[in-house]
């Protein structure tokens, strides 16, 4: 239907793509540059991209002053647990919502959407009081619980879309071959849902990894603080900040997300369904 793009068209496509990549990558490159700059180079009238006198002092300060290593470990624990638990809860629930179309399901989906309308600030005090009552305030478990609940509505919406994309015929074929419903789920549906599961896990992981406000308010003990809370301590009054250590810490904070994404992203491709119900 569409002809082969001309040489000019192809060149323009590459120019646009390169421009977009620079647009996306520049903040990260600037962060990298700032993290290695000594204090004097941070206030140059004509800043340079490559530090003239690169230093690792910002990293040393970030780690020694704010226990960023411990905070990163806390964030990793909380984010991984949130991601896995969100998937565990969302997986069967989304299957039920997608396959068993009842009025209750419609109401449930509506409620899920509605729940997203409540702002953090409105909920934080009741949540804090409830967690305190059940002994989960100031614990990572309490934080994970909140993150799972917070991520679930979107995870449900996302996963049920993936479930709908799996042809019913595949399940029916498996049933005809004698598979029980559990076997159908285990051997047919869940494996085909892998890209959806990965997307959901990524979403939950990154939301938990970056979350600040709940972590700030619900966790009081310094040793339990997560990375965003630790990083905020480099910001001072009225927007002033200790840019060097902040950039160094922020750079480290982006790495796990990048690695997690790099490892998981190839699973996002949904090619396994290609040709599944042909012929």
């Amino acid at each position, binding site marked *: 239907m569409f002809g082969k793009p001309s040489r000019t068209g192809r060149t323009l496509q590459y120019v646009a793509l390169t421009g977009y990549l620079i647009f996306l990558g520049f903040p990260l490159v600037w962060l990298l540059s700032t993290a290695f700059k000594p204090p004097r180079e941070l206030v140059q009238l004509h800043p340079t991209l490559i530090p003239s006198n690169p230093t690792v002092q910002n990293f040393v300060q970030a780690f020694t002053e704010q226990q960023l290593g411990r905070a990163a470990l806390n964030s990793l624990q909380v984010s991984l647990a949130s991601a896995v638990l969100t998937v565990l809860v969302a997986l069967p629930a989304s299957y039920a919502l997608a396959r068993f179309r009842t009025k209750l399901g419609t109401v449930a989906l509506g409620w899920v959407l509605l729940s997203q309308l409540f702002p953090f600030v409105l909920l934080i005090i009741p949540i804090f009081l409830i967690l*305190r009552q059940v002994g989960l305030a100031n614990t*990572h478990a309490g934080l994970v619980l909140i993150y799972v609940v917070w991520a679930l509505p979107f995870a449900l919406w996302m996963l049920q879309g993936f479930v709908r994309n799996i042809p019913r015929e595949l399940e029916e074929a498996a049933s005809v071959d004698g598979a029980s419903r559990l076997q159908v789920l285990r051997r047919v549906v869940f*494996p085909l849902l892998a890209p959806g599961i990965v997307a959901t896990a990524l979403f939950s992981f990154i939301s938990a990894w970056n979350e600040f406000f709940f972590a700030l308010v619900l966790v009081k003990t310094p040793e339990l603080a997560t990375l965003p809370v630790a990083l905020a301590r480099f910001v001072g009054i009225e927007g*002033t900040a200790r840019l060097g250590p902040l950039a160094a810490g922020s750079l480290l904070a982006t790495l796990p997300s990048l690695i997690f994404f790099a490892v998981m992203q190839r699973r996002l491709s949904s090619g396994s369904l290609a040709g599944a119900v042909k012929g």
Partner: protein
Amino acid sequence: MLRSRFRRLAAAAAVAVVGLGALTACGDGGGEDETSSGPVKLRFLSLAWQKESLQANKDLVAKWNAEHPDIQVEYVQGDWNSIHDQLVTSFEGGDVADIVHYEASAIGEFSKQGYLADVSKLLSDDFKGQIDQGVWDTATFDDKVTGVPFLLESQVVIANKKLLDAAGIAVPPADGGWTWDEFQANAQKLTKPGQYGAAWALKSPTNRVLNLALNYDGKFFYSDGGKTEVKVGDAEKEVPKRIHDMIYTSKSASPEALGMSGADTLPGFFGGKYAMLPGSVSLRQQMVEQAPAGFEWVTLPPIKGLSTKQAANPQTLSIAEDSKHKKQAAQFLEWFLNPTNMAALAKGDWLVPTGKQANQELVKLTNGKQGWDVAADSAADLTVAPFQKADGYPEWKTKYATPALQQYFANKITLDQLGTQLVDGGKQVLR
């Protein structure tokens, strides 16, 4: 293949569940201090963030803990940007730190809601006598003193020494600053192509203008018979008018700096684009840390109008009303803010200590260098301003004053229109 994938998924799930079980152990379990028979435990929520200040705070807490095994203080670090939300939640949820670091203009709201203890009955007269009554007044609400003011921030002028010398301008002594007329005239002398005499960082103009307005006795908030209203007369207009004149009439102040914070002006200052930076005394810290090698800077005393008075908004330490150990918290505060310690804290933050003896110790400790002589002298000019006690000030500032001042300094509205907008805003907020 599918089977092994499913097994991996199941294994990951099992690990997560076991992990969550382990995570529940990561916490204090909400245990209450008063039920244990060990030492009294106090939580101290601090907002120190500068490297030196952070170290000074941590060192002092460690020293206290070593010397007082029966009262142990846990140092918890907060941050200035989220402290308000954090405190609101903690107060409402009944789980606030015993000692809370904040600032005088912000604790009024918590004080009026009964969340902060009256420290006047908990502290000794000796300790209270170290701080001027005018400074205590900034943390007094409905006759209750709910914060111990300990660090002050005055407005001074940081100048490029070489540019002053080149223009033949002498540095005034620490106790005799320039008048506004002299400051404006010198800014004019320092202005030439590619160089402005001054840079007024006015990203958040309201506090700055209201602080300096006291130079001409500009109060903005007037109370009569329990009713407070905003008035903008000649006294209130003087400082904004002079700044506006510098930007648009004499063109001796950079218009670029209008959208900048104090720290944003530093590259231009170090690059010789701006000769003088009117700003906080704490800017000196960035000078020491970030000025290029060989760059000479000086701290000039506060500018004088009818007086050198400025509004004081000291940082405070408060004791939570819900604290089970108010007496011990007060004991810690008296030690933590004794003259020597207060001087160390002020040095770490590059601010002015509220204690008279601490101020003297600090000048002795630093030999008055790096502007400490000027900083120490400026403490006498700091006093409580009416806006700090006005209930609707934060709302008036955000909704009306800041946008109106930004428009005025951007030359979009006239001085009279500015006055009208500020007064009308006051009527909306202070009804």
